[in-house]
């Protein structure tokens, strides 16, 4: 196997990175720590790769033996925009926002598009019976018909146990898979871990071609009890393997906080299916994004000085979703022709240093590009600003202001939810009413009404309604999909 890939390194890895990757790999695959089949062989590969790469001369010889394409300059870019041009030297804490734009500068090349392995994990518990299962069946068939003939599909169904309904197959015989899909029947309870774990196994067993895009689509309509933690562990392992989890909740009786976290741990997002159109839209979007995928995963690692904290991270495009603030942060896939944009809120506790510039964070963004011989690319980023002794009023860049105007509403909604859970009904309903005023001000009367009704429900029942919490949350998220307000014409 190719040495860089063995150690998960980019072609331009620095000696320090090579050493760090080697120690990481050794810790995982050392004979003393062995837990999986084939780890022994892997360990030998790691040793060989390290010995070559760490030695400048041997590395140069090895590099020349690799195909020409590996030496091409990378086409991924990471841009940073800031809410302010300067920060303030002060004993008082301050906030600054950074908008990260990941982009691929290359034009789409159809020959480079990797095939996809899509694994659908379907909840077939008894609550799915009837309309819901019919809707899912119809959309699975839509998916089967729209996937390319090079793509691979697998289907796992679960209730309180899980089974592989369709093992990974190339879509050369869609009619046969369709008939299997039509035969799915409902019954039993919901144990998401069962399905998720088996789905993950399906990916691992189908390791034949590693350059696939790997998407796991979880479809459920219910709560899972007691196995949340094990589900998160699967999501974290999935992230390492470059598998992104998209979690679809049908109806109102599912736990959106859980599915959100599950999805964001792996770079995916959660989607609210309140009607059949939502599922159609999701499938269409998925097909579209598979056909323009450049990097199947991107992740962010930052080092922060002691007095700086990363308060919040949120992906505003594509797949709008809050992100887990735990490094590495999974930023999700990168498409040709469309940026992946993430907004970060940093809090700087106090700034007394006499340095003219302050580093707010420094680190790296890693991309995993299945079409390349050496799939890893790495870009360094540095988030820093000049420091001034006085606080100057300045104009905020429109892109950041627009993103934050939406994000501030999303966070207001999060705040109200947290307060309701904590029993602070008064604050929660006050925040809901503020939210309603904001929606109204933006001309979004439906959302305003929903928020007002929810405030009312909250006061009567001391908790959010299953329906209202999701309508408000995903409604606020959908604001990010609106065109920018400054484009509004007379």
């Amino acid at each position, binding site marked *: 196997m190719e040495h860089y890939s063995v150690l998960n390194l980019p072609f331009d890895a620095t000696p320090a990175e090579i050493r760090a990757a080697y120690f990481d790999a050794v810790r995982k695959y050392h004979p003393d720590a062995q837990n999986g089949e084939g780890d022994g062989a892997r360990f030998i590969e790691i040793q060989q790769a390290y010995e070559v790469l760490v030695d400048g001369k041997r590395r140069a010889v090895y590099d020349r033996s690799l195909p020409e394409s590996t030496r091409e300059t990378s086409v991924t870019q990471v841009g940073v925009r800031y*809410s302010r041009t300067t920060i303030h030297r*002060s004993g*008082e804490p301050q906030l600054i926002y950074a908008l990260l734009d990941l982009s691929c500068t290359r034009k789409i090349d159809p020959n480079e598009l990797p095939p996809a392995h899509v694994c659908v994990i379907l909840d077939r518990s008894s609550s799915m019976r009837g309309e819901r299962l019919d809707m899912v069946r119809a959309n699975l068939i839509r998916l089967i018909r729209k996937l390319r003939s090079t793509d691979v599909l697998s289907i796992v169904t679960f209730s309180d146990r899980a089974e592989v309904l369709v093992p990974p197959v190339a879509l050369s015989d869609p009619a046969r898979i369709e008939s299997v899909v039509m035969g799915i029947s409902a019954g039993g309870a919901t144990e998401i871990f069962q399905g998720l774990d088996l789905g993950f196994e399906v990916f691992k067993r189908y390791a034949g071609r590693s350059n696939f895009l790997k998407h796991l689509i979880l479809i459920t309509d219910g709560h899972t009890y007691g196995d949340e933690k094990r589900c998160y562990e699967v999501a974290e392992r999935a992230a390492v393997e470059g598998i992104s989890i998209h979690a679809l909740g049908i109806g109102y009786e599912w736990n959106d906080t859980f599915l959100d976290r599950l999805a964001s741990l792996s770079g995916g997002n959660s989607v609210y299916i309140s009607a059949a159109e939502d599922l159609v839209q999701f499938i269409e979007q998925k097909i579209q994004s598979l056909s323009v995928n450049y990097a199947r995963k991107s992740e962010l690692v930052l080092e922060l000085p002691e007095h700086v904290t990363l308060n919040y991270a949120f992906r505003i495009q594509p797949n709008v979703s809050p992100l887990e603030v735990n490094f590495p942060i999974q930023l999700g896939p990168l498409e040709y022709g469309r940026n992946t944009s993430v907004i970060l809120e940093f809090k700087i506790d106090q700034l007394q240093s006499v340095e003219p510039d302050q580093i707010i964070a420094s680190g790296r963004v890693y991309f995993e590009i299945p079409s390349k011989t050496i799939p890893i690319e790495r870009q360094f980023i540095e988030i820093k600003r000049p420091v001034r002794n006085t606080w100057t009023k300045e104009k905020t860049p429109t892109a950041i202001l627009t993103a934050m105007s939406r994000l501030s509403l999303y*966070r*207001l909604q999060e705040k109200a939810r947290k307060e309701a859970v904590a029993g602070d009904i008064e604050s929660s309903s006050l925040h809901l009413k503020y939210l309603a*005023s904001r929606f109204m001000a933006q*001309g979004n009367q439906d959302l305003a009404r929903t928020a007002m009704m929810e405030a009312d429900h909250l006061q009567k029942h001391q908790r959010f309604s299953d329906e209202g919490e999701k309508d408000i949350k995903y409604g606020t998220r959908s604001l990010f999909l609106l065109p920018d307000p400054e484009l*509004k014409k007379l």
Partner: protein
Amino acid sequence: MIQCPNCKHQELPGALFCSECGTQLVTADTLTSPLANQPIEPLEFDEQESNPTVLPAQGPVVPVKNVVISLHIVNTDRTMYLTGRSEYSLGRIARGQPILPDFDLSEFDAYSQGVSRLHAAIKVQAMRILIMDLGSANGTRVNGQKLVPNVEYPLKSGDLIALGKLKIEFQTSTD
């Protein structure tokens, strides 16, 4: 610390929006002296009803009883009265528009005066009345001062509002 002009919540310097009520705290436009910094005149209340412990001083959307808002379109003999609600949007109705304003100003030649379809909103709160530009194309002015879009500004009786070029005199009275 910086203070939210709407709800008086304290935010860290550098914050762009109030985390309590969502008000925009910074300007994308340059505005010399925001009206929001002027002292806010409380509306007149009956002694019994103005108990501040019952009515949150800066609370959202709490309709004021007994206050009638009148909007007199300058250079016409027409006056519109706003009652019974806590929020009114002003604009004009055009074909194929998804969201309609509560008050349609089309008959006052709104289009050629530069009024947007959803131009501004007037909100009645516990202690005050606010106006907010809804991101209109030609902007909203109060007594000649241009408003930052989507930021609320207090109104007092006698203020002159301009939606684009359409001038409206704002008056309040009690029932």
